[in-house]
């Protein structure tokens, strides 16, 4: 190991070992979630300084039970440890084990030890151990497995300095360490396979060779030739991999009880049953779903309503700042770029922060106490039909407020396919940004009359829009499940952890991490698109914008318009002459079958920034931009006629068609940006955009045809 190499330490452990709490204790804010190309699961990286001043790169690897993975999202850990040349392969592995349930945590530990890399054991949850009246004998375990063992508590932070010291000591000792004897006693066939692989692939460690023998088909670092060699070895030895994996696991387990007896002394008391009592209510046949609905109402209320207070504040601050700036800056396109492009984009990014922070505060809290596993248990059956996971229900419900934080919350879904489907269908759920669009269009086209005495037709249409979104989400989830059908068996076998008080540091760090990931990750894309949209509305081909301005001024003077009305008219004519206007007119033939004119075309383009922009653009085009008056806009829209036929633009059919379009189309650059960030590539983001746009176009067309024919 050369001197320039920074020490890399990886935290390894079972899903409920408290690994991430220890990671947070050791790194605090000096961490980032790596979006590593080709890696679809979260690997967190952070920095840690050793007492001697050395910097350590600390990795938090995904929790797993065994180095023989049973689902594709668990493969990453095996792929790292099977390949010493891997970019994540650590110099020292810190194995985090739950001391209250040691026996279940020894499987992965002994597998790790057999790989011959330096391991430090962090025996976690010593605070709970004390509460339960148990006694731990760390030296006994250390002697039995021949590795240093440190008793720690991730929650209280007890003994963290000791753990760091032990990591340092182990890292220094490393070069001198002799290859230890394998804990697992290989069977004959395993010896033969491992030897053949060692010989052919120059793998020194026998257990690593055996792991490669089990999993070479999907291990990413092997070449096709190497795989062919391995295939030949497995065939000639008639090695039955799956069978051998189970046998190995069982053999290991057989030798754990004496180890556990030496290490843990349990008092003769009744087992913990608070969790049982809580679960008797929270997972109850009737009360379970009822209480879940109540919890989700709270979540929904927080991101729909409470977050609007800071959101309005952020928008006001930006509006005021923009007003202040435009008064002082010279009338130049650079000033406009700053105020209408960059500042508007920044405001568009920051306005999401309250929603993201609130949603993740609540979701992390539910995750921390152990409730999320129960949600998966209760809703697995319903969501699985639509290609999703019990957890997806939280994303879908949150999508009713805003798809951006909702999609970010789907990160915790372990199965990649279920996570992808959740990400792809969540934007169908009608979010709060669709409300102003729905409100204008419904008030415009749907008569406010009562049906059967109590139901208002307008409210009924509103409800119908929500229903349309939910149906589209579930139906496309179902279709994608059929389309993406993988051969990989899908399991629901999850641990339901003991309920615990939340660890607040974990909650705050998650909120911080999600907010900064959004601002720095998706924010860049949102800012960029916002500037492009600004440019399209601010520049026109050649001298067209200037000519339009002059013409509008002449008209205004001729009609004797007051200052505001003149400014509104100029704004409308300039927008018409801009690239956005040109494009709006260019797409008119394509959107005419849906009942739209070029003015709606412009609004379709500008409202890609966010759906609610539709209302603002319509106001500008109908020369009432300054009024901010929905009633005036509705009157203008009602009076609008097609340029050629002279027929009214906003018939019931057009309004319904627009409603359907906005319900189904991915008219939101922030969602696009967040999907790109969460899936790690433009591929899914663009595919989703195309898919949703096509569906919206078809749906809107059918609505137009249907309504024209019927009405």
């Amino acid at each position, binding site marked *: 190991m050369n001197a320039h190499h920074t020490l890399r330490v990886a935290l390894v452990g079972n899903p409920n070992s408290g690994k991430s709490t220890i990671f947070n204790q050791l790194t605090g804010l000096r961490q980032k979630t790596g979006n590593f190309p080709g890696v679809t699961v979260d690997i967190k990286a952070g920095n840690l300084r050793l007492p001697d001043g050395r910097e350590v790169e600390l990795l938090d690897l995904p929790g797993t*039970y*065994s180095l*023989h993975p*049973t*689902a594709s999202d668990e493969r990453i850990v095996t792929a790292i440890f099977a390949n010493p040349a891997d970019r994540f392969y650590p110099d020292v592995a810190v194995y985090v084990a739950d001391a209250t*349930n040691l*026996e*279940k945590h020894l*499987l992965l530990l002994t597998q790790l030890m057999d790989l011959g890399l330096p391991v430090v054991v962090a025996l976690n949850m010593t605070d709970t151990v004390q509460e339960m009246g148990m006694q731990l004998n760390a030296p006994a375990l250390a002697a039995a497995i021949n590795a240093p063992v440190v008793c720690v508590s991730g929650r209280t932070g007890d003994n963290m300095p000791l753990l760091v010291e032990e990591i340092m000591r182990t890292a220094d000792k490393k070069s001198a360490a002799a290859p230890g004897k394998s804990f697992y006693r290989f069977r004959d066939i395993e010896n033969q396979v491992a030897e053949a692989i060692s010989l052919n692939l120059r793998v020194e460690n026998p257990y690593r060779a055996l792991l490669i023998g089990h999993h070479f088909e999907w291990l990413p670092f092997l070449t096709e030739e190497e795989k062919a060699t391995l295939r030949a070895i497995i065939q000639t030895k008639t090695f039955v991999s*799956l*069978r051998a*994996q*189970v046998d190995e*696991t*069982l053999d290991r*387990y057989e030798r754990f009880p004496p180890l556990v007896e030496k290490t843990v002394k349990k008092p003769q008391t009744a*087992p913990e049953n608070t*969790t*049982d009592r809580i*679960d008797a209510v929270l*997972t*109850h*046949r*009737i009360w*379970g*779903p009822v209480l879940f609905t109540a919890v989700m109402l709270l979540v929904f209320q927080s991101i729909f309503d409470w977050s609007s207070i800071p959101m309005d504040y952020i928008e006001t601050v930006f509006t005021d700042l923009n007003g202040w700036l435009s008064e002082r800056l010279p009338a130049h396109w650079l000033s406009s770029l700053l105020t209408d492009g960059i500042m508007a984009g920044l405001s568009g990014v920051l306005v999401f922060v309250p929603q993201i922070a609130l949603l993740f505060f609540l979701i992390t809290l539910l995750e921390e106490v152990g409730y999320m*596993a129960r949600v*998966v*248990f*209760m*809703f*697995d*059956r*319903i969501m699985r039909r639509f290609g999703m996971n019990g957890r997806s229900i939280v994303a879908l419900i949150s999508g009713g407020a805003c798809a951006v934080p909702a999609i970010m919350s789907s990160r915790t879904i372990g199965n990649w396919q279920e996570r992808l489907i959740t990400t792809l269908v969540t934007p169908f759920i009608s979010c709060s940004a669709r409300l102003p669009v729905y409100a204008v269009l419904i008030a415009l086209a749907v008569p406010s009359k009562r049906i059967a005495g109590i139901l208002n037709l307008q409210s009924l249409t509103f409800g119908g829009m929500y229903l349309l979104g939910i149906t589209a989400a579930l139906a496309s989830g179902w279709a994608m499940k059929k389309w993406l059908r993988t051969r990989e*068996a899908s*399991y*629901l*076998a*999850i*641990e*339901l*952890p*003991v309920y615990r008080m939340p660890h607040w540091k974990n909650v705050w760090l998650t909120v911080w991490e999600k907010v900064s990931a959004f601002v720095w990750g998706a924010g860049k894309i949102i800012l960029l698109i916002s500037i492009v949209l600004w440019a399209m509305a601010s520049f026109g081909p050649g001298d067209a914008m200037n000519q339009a301005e002059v013409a509008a001024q002449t008209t205004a003077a001729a009609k004797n318009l007051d200052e505001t009305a003149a400014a509104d008219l100029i704004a409308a004519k300039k927008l018409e002459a801009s690239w956005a206007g040109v494009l709006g007119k260019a797409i008119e033939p394509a959107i005419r079958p849906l009942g739209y004119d070029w003015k709606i075309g412009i609004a379709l383009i500008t409202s890609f920034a966010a759906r609610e922009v539709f209302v603002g653009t319509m106001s500008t085009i109908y020369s009432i931009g300054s009024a901010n008056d929905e009633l005036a806009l509705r009157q203008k829209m009602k009076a609008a006629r097609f340029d050629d036929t002279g027929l009214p633009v906003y018939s019931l059919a057009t309004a319904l068609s627009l409603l359907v379009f906005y319900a189904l189309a991915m008219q939101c650059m922030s969602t696009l940006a967040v999907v790109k960030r969460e899936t790690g590539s433009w591929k899914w983001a663009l595919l989703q955009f195309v898919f949703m746009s096509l569906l919206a176009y078809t749906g809107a067309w059918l609505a137009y045809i249907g309504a024209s024919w019927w009405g």
Partner: protein
Amino acid sequence: MQRRYRTIPDLHLHESARAIAFNNPALAGKLTAMGLLPGSMVEMVRTAPFGQAYYIKADGVRMALREEEAAGVLLEG
């Protein structure tokens, strides 16, 4: 004649039985890694609100299993 073993869905509420084997190796790999072993005491705690999933305890460890997985755990007696 082939003997049909009882499996987890056959358990009554709060009934316990010892697991003896699994009906497929992939499932065996998953469940043994989580600590549900041949020899583990399995207790039926409750079924999911909408069915097709079970809340069980294996040697005191709480787990949720789908119908298919639960039916793959063969029980004694």
